[in-house]
Every structure is written in C-alpha cells, then in structure tokens.
C-alpha cells in the first residue's frame, strides 16, 4: 500500500516535471505579431523600468508622470525597478510584465528569446517625432521592423577630478595606458559590456587588430581587449555599477578618473565635487533605451498607451531631465524646464551620437558583417569579465 502511494507520487512528480519541461519548450510560435489596432485599455499595466523612468512622485513630488497617465488612460501602473540589463531579461522571461525599458545590451536577447514582440509604430502617434538617428537601429529592430519605441540615450563619458588630474585628458588613454599615473584611484563600469570600451580604444589606436565594431570581437580581438583591461585592473580602485556609489567615490577622491554618465557628472558637480566629464577623441560607448512590449503581455492596449505617453514631448522631457539623458522625442527639447537641456545632452546633435557606439549584445554572428569568422558572444564576455577582475 505504502509502496504504491510512493510510486504514485513519484509518477505524479515526474508528470509534473514533464509538464513543466514541456511548457518550457513550448515556445515554437516565436514569430510574434504586432497588433493591427488597439482596443480599450485593460485598466492595468505592469512595467519593468530603470530607476527614475516611471516616477509617481514618491521619490520627488515634482517628478510624477505616472499619476497623470493613470488619470488620462485609466490604466493603473505597477512598476518593477530593475538594477541591471540582466535582471530585466530574467524578469521579462516570467511573462508577468507588459513592457520594459530595455537597453541595447538587453533588447536583442529579448527579441531572440521571443520575449519581446515587434511594435506597430502606427499605433504610437508620437513615434513620428523621434529623432531619426534612433529609428531602425541594429539594437532595436530586426528584419526592418521596430521592436520598441526609443526612449532616450546617453554616452559613457570620461570623468576626472580637475584638482587631482593635472592635464585635462582628451583620450581614453588616461584610463588605459596612462592609468598608472592615478594607480588605485581609477574607476570603470562593472559589467561585461565595459569590454567594449577597451575594444573601442583598441579600434582607434591599434588598427592592426582589425576591430570594426567594439561589439563584434573575434577570439583574438577579445583577448587583446582582455589583456588591456587586465593591465588597467592593476590601477583600478573600485568598479562601479551603482551611480550613487560613483558619486561619493568621486566626491571623496577615492576615484579621480574613469567612466561615467552625464547624470553622475551633474549630480557630483551639484555636490560641489570638482569634476568634469568629457567625450574623448576616440568617441565613446553609450546606451540607448527602448520601450519594448512583451509577447505574453496581458495588457497590450495599456502597454501601447504607456509607450505613447512616455515619448510624448512633455513627459519625455520630464524623464530626460530627471534621469539626465537626451530625450528621444525631438519636440521634447522645447518642453524641458532647463532650456539648455538638449544642448547639454547633445540631444539633436547627430554628429555627436555618430561617435557613440550604443550598447549591443555581442553574438556569435559578427555584427560588423564578417562572414568568415565567429565572434565572441555575451556569455564569453561575462566569463572574460570575471577573469579580468581576477
């Protein structure tokens, strides 16, 4: 009797496992379609966002574009703040969210795994005002179809303490070959994607390596970037991924030179830290965020309403100013509280952004079009990053 019941429960467990596995591999239909037209709002939308992208006034009473959205559309907003691109990818896999503000190093992964659906831009009226430089880019489109609505962009700049770094740097050389000058006080962004910064520097300074795109590295090119970063590691004080930590490190002088975002430079200067951020002559890596819709979205109509809301001129200007980035909507520049905002962030300066290599997920198929070799993918970059940090 006992044996039978044990056998039965074992069988049940196996059946459950099979069912779970079957569910896992039941994603055969990956050619998700964009909706032709929108229906009524579902009364709710679940969002994954970077901190500061979906503010409801709880952090700063003046920063609230969630409540007006709820009032206008009747869609209640539930926001899940994610700290990293990797976290966004894993949250999207749960299928419980409708839309996500994905950066370029998450977007392609979400498209390939079938978690993000193509977006019918006709249904997002404000899409027509988006800067042309952000449309149909390799990190937000596939086969000529947009997989999201651009939100805004920024560049990873070189920041330094004006009192500690005597000669104003104009090259990434300051954090690579010349890093020893500030040994123990150099900082770098703590993510595998930072390997692209080294690749970009090598692309400009070592043409013999043949790097055409910092996100398309074959084995030898990756090894060269890793060697450069290992050398840099000796001079690193600490790596940063939390922007508050970076601000305090620069204010206290624990970091005196390294990568930054514009928003960090602004906040540090507001804190009276003598810092300056520049775009080095080699150009820079950068990030461009895209609002994507989940293929399993339970509230697609409200998600589309959110997409249109967040890139509408007024709201896009609010987000861009609060977070400290360039808005995606050209008309947003007329709406910012600080009339110089778009100039400071080079929002309409396409030549500035041509020098910015936006984060893209490295994949085996070389993104620079090389056919005769395979490139290193993000998993290899992750392993390399662990190795660099030792």
């Amino acid at each position, binding site marked *: 009797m006992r044996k039978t019941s044990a056998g039965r429960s074992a069988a049940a467990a196996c059946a459950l496992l099979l069912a779970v596995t079957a569910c*896992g591999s039941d994603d055969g239909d990956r050619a998700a379609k964009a909706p032709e037209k929108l229906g009524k709002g579902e009364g709710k939308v679940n969002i994954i966002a970077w901190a500061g992208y979906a503010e409801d006034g709880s952090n700063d009473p003046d920063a609230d574009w969630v409540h007006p959205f709820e009032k206008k559309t009747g869609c209640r907003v539930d926001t899940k703040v994610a700290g*990293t691109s*990797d976290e966004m990818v894993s949250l999207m896999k749960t299928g419980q969210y409708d839309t996500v503000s994905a950066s370029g190093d998450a977007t392609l992964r979400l498209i390939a795994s079938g978690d993000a659906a193509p977006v019918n831009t006709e249904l997002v009226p404000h899409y027509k005002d988006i800067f042309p430089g952000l449309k149909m880019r390799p990190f937000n489109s596939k086969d000529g179809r947009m997989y999201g609505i651009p939100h805004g962009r920024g560049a990873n700049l070189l920041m330094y303490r004006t009192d500690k770094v005597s000669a104003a740097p104009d090259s990434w050389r300051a954090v690579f070959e010349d890093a020893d000058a500030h040994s123990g006080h150099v900082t770098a962004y703590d993510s595998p994607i930072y390997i692209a910064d080294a690749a970009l520097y090598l692309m400009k300074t070592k043409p013999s390596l043949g790097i055409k795109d910092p996100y398309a590295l074959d084995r030898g090119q990756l090894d060269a970037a890793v060697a450069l970063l290992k050398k840099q590691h000796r001079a690193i004080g600490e790596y940063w991924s939390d922007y508050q930590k970076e601000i*305090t490190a620069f204010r206290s002088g624990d970091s005196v030179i390294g990568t930054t975002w514009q928003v960090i430079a602004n906040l540090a200067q507001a804190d009276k830290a003598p810092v300056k951020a520049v775009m080095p002559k080699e150009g820079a890596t950068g990030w461009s965020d895209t609002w994507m819709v989940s293929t399993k979205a339970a509230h697609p109509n409200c998600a589309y309403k959110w997409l249109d809301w967040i890139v509408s001129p007024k709201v896009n200007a609010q987000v861009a100013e609060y977070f400290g980035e360039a808005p995606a909507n050209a008309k947003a520049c007329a709406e910012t509280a600080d009339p110089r905002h778009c100039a400071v962030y080079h929002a309409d300066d396409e030549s500035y952004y041509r020098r910015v290599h936006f984060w893209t997920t490295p994949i085996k198929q070389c993104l620079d079009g090389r056919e005769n070799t395979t490139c290193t993918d993000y998993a290899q970059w992750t392993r390399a*990053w662990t190795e660099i940090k030792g």
Partner: protein
Amino acid sequence: MRAPTARPAQDPGPAEGPPPRPAPSPGARPAPGPRAAARLRLAARLRLAALLGPPLLWLTLAYLGSLAVLLVSAFWTTDSFTSDVVRTWTTDNLHELLTTPVYRTIALRTVSIAIAVTLIDAVLALPMAFFMARVAGRRWRRPLLVAVLTPLWAGYLVKAYAWRVMLGHDGVLNRTLAPLGLHGPGYGTTAVVVVLAYLWLPYMILPVYAALERIPERTLEASADLGAGPWRTLRSIVLPAARPALLAGSVFTFSLSLGDYLTVQIVGGKTQLIGNVIASQVTLDLPMAAALSAVPVVLIVCYLAAVRRAGALDSL
C-alpha cells in the same frame, strides 16, 4: 497498547499536563475512562504532529528541497544568447569550475579571508570574553553583554556603509593617521577582512563568554595554589575550556564570511569573492551560478565535519 493507555486513567491530573482539566474543579466531571484517555492520547499525538509538521515540512521542502534543486540545476546549461536554461544533462559547468584558474584564485581568496576573519575574531574575543566572564564585577557583566550585542541590532548595510565612509580617501581613519605620515588601507581585501571581523565579532564572543563563565572558580584557584602562573593557567585551564566554544564561534564567523558578497561590494574596491561571482552569474547563467554555489556548500560541510570531530558542535 493497553498498558500506557490505562496509566492516565489510574493517575489523572498533573502527569497528563493540561488536557485533563478536572483539577481546578474537582468532582465536576468523572475521571476519563480508558477510551477517553486513548482519545486524549491520540489528540496529544495529533497536536505534536501539527506542531512539528510545518517546521519539518519547511525544512525538507523549502530548505533541503531548494538546495537539491540548486545542485541539480548545476548540471544544466543555458542558451548563451537568450540566457534560457536548457535542461540537458551536462557536467560542463563543474568541469569549467574545476579547470578555470580564475575560479580557483577566487575560491582561495574567499577561504583565506574567511580564515583571517575567524582568527582575528578568536584573538579579539578571547580576552574580551574572559574579562566579561571572570574579571568584571557581576554588576558590569550585563551592561558589557548588552554592549557587545548592541551592534547586532543596527542594520548590516548601515554598518558596512559607515565603514565605507571611515575608510574613504578623506575619511576619519586617513585624517587621523595623516599627522603620523601614515594612511589607512583604503578599499580592498584588508578593508573586507577588517569590516567582516567587526561584523561577526559578537558571534564569537557570545559562545566563548558562555564557556568561560562555566569554568568553576575552584579550578582557577587550584591552578594558582599549585603554583601555575597566569600563562600556565591560560594554557592548561582556560584555553581547553574555551576551545569547543572558539570552534563553535568559528563556525559562524567562517561560514558567514564565506557567503558574504555585500561587504566586499561596499568596501572591497575591486576585490572579487565567490559570492560576487555567483551574484553576477545568477540572472545570466543560472546553472553556472549553481555550480559555483556548490563551492561554499562543500567548504562549509568540510569545515563542519572537521569541527564536529573536535567535538565543538556539542556546545552549540
């Protein structure tokens, strides 16, 4: 079966504990017959089962179960691009773990830090606990104990960030040392050891204090009467008495240091420990993270086995 059920019938009252209520109101109800007693006994067993069931279920399903799932998933793999877990059986992760030099370096560094923290805590805790247990007057023991425990009430992150501020470039430590021409360790491995030793010190002091308090005064007096100096008494009486407690405390300091990844993020500078590697892999490559998690699990099991042989777990 009959004998035990009959017993309460003959002797109702205090032996049975709360169930037979008649004691407060004697004579209100007749003493329960054998059948009622059997029912009571069954009820007591059911109560015991109800009491122990949920925690046992929790322990086996939630605790051991999740550990088992974790270890099983170490044998899976992921799609390198989409990070989807692919459920095919492979030992690649373990192979990579054992053959990649960087993981060995990180594991060694983590273990060294855990050992250093444990040694520092042992060296600090022994005199402090001895003072509290044997030297300080009875009136002072309780305030001292509270003083040792108080830091445990403050948040972990608060304490770690406080150390970040202290150890910073223009922090208190550097400013104090500057007139002497010295400067603090800055962020790095040393800072991690110092902060972890600070964080886990109470876990070492408490068991040692309890052990030293139990040493009979007579033994120490006898040692002195027989002509032993303080060192000899320390070596032959105090240390043997404190040894199991030191080992028990070291289980806490060692395992807590081994699993830590937040302190190192806050004051570790560029230092990387096993916990950081697991944390950075967990969303991206769950099977690899699971394989990496096996390292601290194995290390702690080995440590516990070694400590158990030394008989320290008896005093936990």
